[in-house]
């Protein structure tokens, strides 16, 4: 009987050990998906966002960001569109305040985020290169590639992103519910800050050279291989 118990305890230890080992092992797995620190220590861990080597080291410490794109895409695929550099990622659904502005995290599958920054051309509008551009109107639609129409069966699979701040800075985003795995297309239609009344100086001394775009800038993230995930 005593021996029996000992062996049972040993098995328990073995199991627990193997689980701990596997957990520990994952710290060194080469997590190519981007991870993002949600603590203030981000600035010193990420000096160059294009360098993927630093992201592996904090796997497990930060929450997981998955790029919107085809399978094999491990990094956010930035696109240049007019004065904007546009990237799209999704990650765990999150609660925001005020709460009536979108789906609550418990009811959503993921948080979809558009990272929109100024590029070289944006300097003509008075923005610094790499600056977040505020007050854009970013409309989004998730299209099912198999039907060519907006995906069915989800919630908030199209609409207008709200602008919001996370620990890594401001972005445009929304919580989305989409349980069906498939190949999708994310279409963004970005209207200029002028729509929300943003003005530009035009005088020779203080004015900017450029003018806001008048037709929405369309950006498409194609062949998005999406699977609903356990966050």
């Amino acid at each position, binding site marked *: 009987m005593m021996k029996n118990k000992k062996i049972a305890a040993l098995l328990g230890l073995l199991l627990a050990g193997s*689980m701990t080992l596997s*957990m520990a092992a994952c710290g060194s797995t080469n997590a190519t998906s981007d991870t993002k620190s949600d603590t203030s220590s981000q600035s010193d861990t990420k000096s160059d966002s294009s360098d993927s080597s630093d992201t592996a080291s904090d796997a497990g410490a930060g929450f997981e960001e998955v790029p919107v794109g085809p399978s094999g895409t491990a990094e956010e695929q930035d696109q240049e569109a007019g004065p904007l550099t546009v990237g799209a990622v999704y990650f765990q659904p999150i609660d925001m305040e005020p709460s009536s502005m979108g789906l609550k995290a418990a*009811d959503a599958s993921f948080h979809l985020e558009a990272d929109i920054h100024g590029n070289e051309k944006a300097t003509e509008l008075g923005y610094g290169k790499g600056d977040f551009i505020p007050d854009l109107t970013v409309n989004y639609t998730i299209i099912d590639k198999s039907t060519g129409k907006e995906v069915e069966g989800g919630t908030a699979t199209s609409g207008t992103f709200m602008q919001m701040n996370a620990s890594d800075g401001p972005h445009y985003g929304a919580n989305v519910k989409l349980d069906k795995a498939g190949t999708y297309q994310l279409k963004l239609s970005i209207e200029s800050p002028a729509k929300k009344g943003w003005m530009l100086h035009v005088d020779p001394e203080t004015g900017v050279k450029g003018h806001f775009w008048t037709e929405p800038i369309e950006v498409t993230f194609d062949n998005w291989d999406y699977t609903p995930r356990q966050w």
Partner: protein
Amino acid sequence: MLEQFVAVMPGTLAPALLVMCLSVMLTVGEGRDKPLSAHWRLWGLVIGLVAAVAFAALRATAVINQRTFVNYPVLVVAVIVDVLAIAVVLCARRITHDWDKHALWMHVANAVAAVQIALTVFYALPDVILQLTIWVEPGETAFTSAMLLRALGFVLGAAMSIVVAAIFRTMRTTAVRWAFTVSVVAVMAILLVQHFTGLAQILQARGFPMNHMMFVALAWSINHNTAMIMAQALVFVVPAVASVVAGFRMKTHNVPGANEATLRRHKAFRRHAISATVWSLIAMIGVTATLTAGVAATHQTITLSEPEAYSLQDGVATIPFSQVEDGHLHRFEYKAKDGTVMRFIIIKKNGGAYGIGLDACENCGDAGYYEKDGKIICKKCEVAINLATIGFKGGCNPIPFPYKTGNGKITIQTADLDALSAHFQ
């Protein structure tokens, strides 16, 4: 309650079936005549449960902020162990027969089974436990009757899985061994597919090179998970048929050389075989109904209530307070000058003021709002609108427009509505 039930039952069914299957396949001996590894499977279950609860708690409290980094190694091991466990089940007859002559193999089989149970429970249950996070609605206290119903749904869901597994277990003595083994192997093969799918999904999100065909296969597997869970229950139709056949074959009279006691035993077997089959079929119907009708009932499509009548004269719409002061949502329709059919809503707020806006918002267009359990909800994004914020711009709030209240009525200039017709085009 139904939502929790239909989420929890499918999540717990596979672990419950696995524990039952391995117990039927590997249990040997009675009393003291048992291998020292007899309790290992139980230990596997306990460790898996405790680890799952701890992991879910750490995730829910955001101590751990992603599950993938734990699930990844767990699934790698689970896939390997699943294959080994299928081999164990296929050889179970040989291992359990005269087990004391090759006790080591018995221990190996129990060890593999224990690890498989622990990993399966550990992987499956956090999803179920994390359902807890949606129990309490924001701004709601934890102890409400709605909360009690949700808790009941959760408990009933888990209970149903255990009951279903227990019912299938009753066929272990009435169905021929190979028929039961077929179901067990099928359950475990599906489990292997589910674990492999989970692993492939993690790899895909981590940038593992995957061509389109591979992704289509992965997506198919993910989208058919419900069908796979149903299949795990429906495969028990094999022992059910075998059981009923064995029952009817059992002769209860005119057996040469059989005494009364033997005949009574035969009758009892037949009764047991038939009832095991009937109950198993009921359990299969129950699982199928939960996953089809039950899930469909939680995804009912909402139809907006019909618009109400109001007076429209000389470019002014007039709605008396008496029509809209009951605290419920009232919908009205208006045909704009450009021919667009528009809708607007009126609801009396708690403070006595009226919340008035278009039946449309900036985010979701003209999807419209409906009333449920005293809340106003957007039909498209399902956001419950805070009554106090109706009348303010932004988010999924109804788009406001000017109106006047006084003399017991609300008056709206139709020109103000005409100006907003674009929201309904």
